[in-house]
């Protein structure tokens, strides 16, 4: 029973980070219709940039802020250079541009920072877990979760209460109507990439605190896909629920199924789950069902 709850809490904590990155993914899809396979590389860049600032002696919170700023700049640049020209192109073209982008960014990261695993030195969070009742929670996980939730709330508030957020929501809802009301679609696309880059960057930095920073953080970008499919591609609450669910499922698979299928069941389970889930509920929990007519 203790094992069960331990697995559950770890799952929720890691799921918080997944949810944050999934939020960025859903945002891009909602606002500009781009299915982004480069999310993993965005997290990778976030993790490495934070690490670089931190090892230069900048305090952790400040280096996260710097990462956010660099994320905004890179997000806008990428949108302007690569994706601006592809609005309205077939789905394969858009997806493959993001794939090309992901190769480019991954190569760039490897070229600049190398392949060795690096850790945040000195460690930001102490390794000693704290205890609630019988639950032992690692401090890294706890603070990552808290930070993910805080950022998530900030993003939600941004969408609900600011002018820019409202115009982004309007574009996602009906692009033509938003255009006629004077919302600049190009601005919204750029903003959605900037925000997605920010979310992914922070997610990468947090994950880097847990496992150390290396090229495999990019795997997070693939794990986001089961999460968004589960929640529905264009649903923000869906992204959160999906992220948390995938985190929990992944940890349960690692704890309970590993005995039956030794090896990498933890890494594979979200994808196997997704493949089966798609057979039964292809539009996810809250996604829009597209009805096709001739």
């Amino acid at each position, binding site marked *: 029973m203790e094992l069960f709850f331990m697995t559950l809490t770890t799952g929720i904590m890691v799921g918080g980070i997944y949810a944050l990155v999934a939020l960025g993914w859903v945002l891009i899809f909602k606002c500009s219709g781009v*299915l982004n396979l480069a999310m993993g590389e965005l997290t990778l860049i976030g993790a490495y940039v934070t690490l670089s600032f931190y090892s230069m002696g900048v305090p952790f919170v400040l280096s996260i802020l710097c990462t956010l700023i660099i994320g905004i700049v890179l997000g806008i640049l990428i949108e302007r250079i*690569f994706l601006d*020209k*592809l609005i309205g*192109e077939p*789905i*394969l*073209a858009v*997806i*493959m*541009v993001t*794939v*090309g*982008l*992901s*190769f*480019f*960014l*991954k*190569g*760039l990261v*490897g*070229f600049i920072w190398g392949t060795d695993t690096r850790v945040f030195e000195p460690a930001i969070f102490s390794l000693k877990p704290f205890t609630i009742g019988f639950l032992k929670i690692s401090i890294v996980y706890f603070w990552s979760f808290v930070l993910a939730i805080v950022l998530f709330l900030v993003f939600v508030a941004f969408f609900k209460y600011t002018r820019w957020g409202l115009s982004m929501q309007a574009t996602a809802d009906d692009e033509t109507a938003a255009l006629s009301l004077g919302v600049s679609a190009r601005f919204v696309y750029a903003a959605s990439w900037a925000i997605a880059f920010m979310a992914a960057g922070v997610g990468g930095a947090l994950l880097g605190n847990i496992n150390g920073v290396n090229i495999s953080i990019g795997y997070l970008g*693939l794990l986001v*896909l*089961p999460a968004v*499919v589960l929640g529905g*591609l264009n649903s923000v609450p869906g992204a959160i629920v999906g992220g948390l669910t995938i985190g929990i499922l992944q940890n349960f698979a690692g704890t309970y199924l590993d005995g039956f*299928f*030794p*090896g*990498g*069941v933890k*890494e*594979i389970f979200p*994808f*196997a789950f*997704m*493949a089966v889930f*798609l*057979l039964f509920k*292809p539009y996810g929990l809250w996604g829009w069902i597209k009805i*096709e*007519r*001739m």
Partner: protein
Amino acid sequence: MSRVWLPCGDYHQRYTEDQGWWQTNVIKGKMIFLLLIVFVVFPLILDEYWIGVANMVGYTALGALGVQLLIGYAGLITLGHAAFIAVGAYTSTLLILKFPWPEFILNLGLAYPISILVAAIVAGLWSVLFGLPSARVKGFYLILTTMAAQFITVDFILTQYVSKIGGRGQAFSLPPGTIKIGPWAMETDLQVYFVMITLLTLTIIMMANLLRSRVGRAWIAIRDNDIAAETLGINIIWYKLLNFFVAGFIGGIAGAFWVCNCAALSPEHFPWFLSLWLVGVILIGGAGIDGAIFGSIFMVVIMELLQMASIPLGEHYPRILFDFAFIKEMAFGLAICAFLIYEPRGLSYRWWQIKNYFNLWPFSY
């Protein structure tokens, strides 16, 4: 689009001529000339290194043909084709190494050819298994299922279970002389080249014939508008699964060919990168069978040239040599982006334009 316009003055009198294998005698001559070049001239003039490059081109082309069939002819976007190539390679290897072949088959050297066929069929069936969701979903959701196929097959089943058969660690080693076709053991690159070019020619003939039959027309109809195709009485689920089967079949052939080109087989030969690489190849190559071939030649040769250029540069900047893998990734990524943005119809479109210019000359209006 892949159909060439006929030269001035040439025209068809019957519908069967429209679907003809060779449209004119000139085309027939050109094709026979091409076959002569690849079967006779290339082996004579190319040195060992470039024969090796040609083998890589052939392997990429075999893989890309399967992807072209799925993406280019049925609109089923796949990002997991390396899984089916891997299934083909592993089936073939396991058959060669573990299957108790009767003595006379071994003596005749038929084990490897039979294993190619079996590998292709197994890979095709495996591909149908992961094509099943295509009955319900399409577009982005189908991409996700094919990605799941890649991770489940290569990273889980092959790495964790199949590789451990025999308990010799991760890789199956294929000692020289294990792979025999008839009396010849596959030892030099030149012999591998002949296997490659034979398989490639047969695959292209099979695919081209399928595409000009009812099956191919049904696939194209599904690609263009699946709902309209359904109202025309095409059983779209059956044809989609058939497409997955044939694509997997070609992937299996590619995998089984890869076995004779390498000394040891490990799951690392079939990463997700390979799947994406193959899609990149057909995007750069463009539509049609010739698109897949052009794309493979272009990508493999460009990467070889990049590698050659990095050696003199590396004397001044040694980092370039160490980090060549990253440079290759960056170049590949940029090439895909640049082609999609500036040359979305690929290389085969340019080739088509050039051909038409000469076919229609001097009355090109």
